[in-house]
């Protein structure tokens, strides 16, 4: 009896959450999307929630399309594309972590990386670096940003995975796009810039962080010959 009661309560809770989610989508899109787009986002939102995908990127894309004055059918295509990209990212993350589900923040970062031009296998490769999910999330965002700068997928993955494996802090990972841009300003191609930074990160992983810069300016006195 108690068990049945708990089941009923559980069902009510799930239904209420789903209802809340639908109302929340409708509220967030109120005045910012046509009725058909609201319906589409609610439908995709249900699927997303049931698959553990984030819903926010779908809502954002619908709002963006409306703000830019894009026709509804084109907004619908773009929202569906975002859903597909999130789905691809989630599948890649699952495949890399032996089917353990990724959190929605990590999936959103992966979805962005896909939008920026990376592939599912690139996402999986980054997830396989064995770093904590929070670091992988930052790595995925940085990878997407590098791809958005024009760094090809192979060099992007090499650089970010080397940096993750070297145990670089989030702040250092986030500095990578700036470093690539600096090199590009000096005439390097995005691929050259990323490849060189990857070599530096790999060297750091091999030898540990660079030595302290406080050594005396002169070499040690040689032993008496």
């Amino acid at each position, binding site marked *: 009896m108690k068990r049945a009661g708990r089941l009923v309560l559980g069902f009510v809770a799930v239904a209420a959450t789903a209802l809340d989610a639908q109302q929340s989508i409708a509220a967030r899109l109120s005045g910012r999307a046509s009725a058909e787009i609201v319906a589409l986002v609610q439908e995709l939102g249900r699927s997303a929630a049931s698959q553990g995908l984030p819903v926010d990127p779908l809502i954002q894309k619908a709002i963006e399309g409306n703000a830019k004055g894009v026709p509804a059918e084109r907004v619908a295509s773009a929202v569906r594309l975002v859903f597909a990209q999130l789905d691809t990212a989630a599948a890649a993350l699952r495949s890399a972590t032996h089917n353990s589900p990724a959190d929605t923040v990590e999936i959103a970062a992966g979805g962005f990386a896909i939008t920026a031009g990376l592939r599912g296998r690139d996402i999986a490769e980054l997830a396989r670096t064995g770093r904590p999910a929070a670091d992988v999330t930052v790595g995925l965002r940085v990878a997407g940003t590098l791809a958005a700068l024009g760094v090809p997928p192979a060099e992007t993955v090499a650089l970010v995975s080397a940096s993750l494996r070297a145990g670089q802090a989030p702040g250092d990972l986030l500095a990578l796009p700036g470093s690539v841009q600096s090199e590009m*300003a*000096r*005439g390097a191609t995005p691929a050259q810039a990323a490849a060189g930074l990857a*070599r*530096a990160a790999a*060297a750091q992983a091999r*030898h540990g962080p*660079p*030595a302290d*810069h406080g*050594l*005396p*300016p*002169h*070499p*040690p006195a*040689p*032993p008496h*010959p």
Partner: protein
Amino acid sequence: MHAETGGPRGSTDGEVVRAVLAGDRERYAVLVERYRDRYARYAARMLGSTDAAEDAVQDAFVRAYDQLAQCQDPNKFVGWFFLILRNRCFAEQRKSRSHLSLEAATSVPTADRSDVATETGEKRRALQEALLGLTAEQREVFVLKHVEGLSYMEIAERLNTSVPSLKMRMHRAYDRLREQLREHA
């Protein structure tokens, strides 16, 4: 991409150093470009691999940038930079002697990565490994004389030491190399 003015690539070392100290950070690239290869071979032979040399040369340039205000004669930047790189190579040697010889076996010689394990390649490899068995001071004098082609006088000037002292170091190096190469054979 920004336009360079005043032809910085033609500037003297002193002019570039002063410009960097005055805040034109980007000009430091001129010095790096100018000297990155000059002692690359020295670093590669001292450390046993091109990869290690690249790390060392990079690190030495970053250090030199940090200490640029201490460069007493900016027109002699390159001699001053050499001492910093040398210091870095010696420090690396102290840090990881075993690691170096390990890497030497796989990645030292530049010419013998090629297809054929020629006799020359084998001999080069053996000598480079034997060099890593010397003390850093012995190896340095050998590299400067027989790889870089400097005379004892030039080496003495650069390292601020005497020719007899260098010769003693070198002669010990010859004996040690002979011993190691015989063991290897």
